[in-house]
């Protein structure tokens, strides 16, 4: 049994909206209002997928309701990242996981993993794991998982290189961590196109002030040059007067 399995979910194509970086705390605050919302279906389990990005990170949140009796104390959501738009198991190279160690008490951990021979390895080579993840449960039937995934080149060879302008397959995997690798119960695949970074906003007032200050300083410089010239002329005059 491999961790990475074929996903039979529909391959929705998502183009993330640009937004400010949210707090990755599982709280699903107002900052997610600007995200691209998609209904996802985990083989019978319905959820809402929210995706957005800024110039440096991709942000993904998954929200779904599940009957308390169907939940596991050590449940997890893993986001497996393909190195292309292909959702074949062999193309998934990277994984970001949030797993609960005790769902009732809300204890969870974020794991920056990589995929090796279809299996998940959570000893990522980089000790300072890239990205971030968090989860929070509401009323024991609604749960929100949030992820932050770095874009562009990271310093970790086991991280997926999510290049701007390209499309990548993301497999959202749900299951019970303690039963790994057999605990995977549901997965869903989506295609996300990473948007090219926005150029920094041009502050017109700042430019005007900068130009004005250059003009002002040039005028002051010209005044000082004329003033210095007058001092030299004065020196000659004094020299003549004093003999």
């Amino acid at each position, binding site marked *: 049994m491999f961790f990475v399995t074929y996903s039979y979910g529909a391959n929705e194509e998502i183009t993330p909206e640009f937004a400010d970086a949210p707090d990755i705390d599982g709280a699903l605050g107002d900052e997610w209002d600007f995200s691209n919302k998609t209904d996802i279906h985990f083989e019978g389990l319905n959820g809402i997928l929210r995706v957005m990005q800024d110039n440096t990170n991709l942000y993904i949140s998954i929200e779904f309701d599940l009957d308390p009796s169907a939940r596991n104390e050590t449940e997890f959501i893993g986001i497996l990242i393909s190195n292309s738009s292909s959702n074949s198991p062999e193309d998934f190279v990277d994984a970001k996981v949030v797993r609960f160690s005790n769902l009732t008490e809300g204890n969870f951990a974020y794991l920056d993993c990589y995929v090796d021979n279809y299996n998940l390895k959570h000893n990522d080579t980089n000790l300072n794991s890239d990205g971030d993840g968090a989860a929070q449960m509401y009323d024991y039937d609604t749960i929100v998982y949030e992820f932050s995934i770095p874009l562009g080149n990271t310093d970790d060879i086991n991280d997926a290189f999510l290049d701007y302008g390209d499309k990548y397959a993301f497999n959202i995997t749900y299951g019970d961590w303690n039963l790994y690798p057999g605990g995977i119960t549901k997965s869903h695949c989506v295609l996300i196109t990473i948007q090219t970074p926005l150029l920094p906003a041009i502050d017109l007032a700042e430019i005007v002030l900068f130009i004005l200050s250059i003009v002002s*300083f040039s005028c002051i410089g010209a005044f*000082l040059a004329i*003033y210095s010239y*007058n*001092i030299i002329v*004065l020196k000659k005059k*004094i020299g003549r007067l*004093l003999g």
Partner: protein
Amino acid sequence: MPKFQKEQGKESRIREKQAFKEEFAFRSLVITTIIGVACFIVSIFFNVVEIFTILNLQGSFFDLIDLVIRISVVLLFFFFMMISLGNYKDLLGKPSNWKEIAFLFFLSMLQTMRNIYVFGFTLLGLIILVLYLYLIQDS
């Protein structure tokens, strides 16, 4: 005859004294102008180029240092240029008038336009400086 010689000697001493006074005033004029121009050059680096931002020196400590330097150089520019202008006018035999002081005030404030805090504190500093110079002149 001896009386004429005595008066001639007195005149020569007065002329020497006058020459020494003018020499001293001119030297003061040159030195204060050089310091004023140096302050202006430092002001370019801090108030236009924003050297701390270019060198990526950020944080509350560097922000404070940056602010203090920006304000200080403009106040020193005003102070030395005012002395310089006073000496210059003195050598021409005319007193400085309020228009020249206002012009220097304006030139100093022009240097602070990029930062509201620098503008505010410099304005306050210049007002205090002008008041101080006015009061010591009266006394």
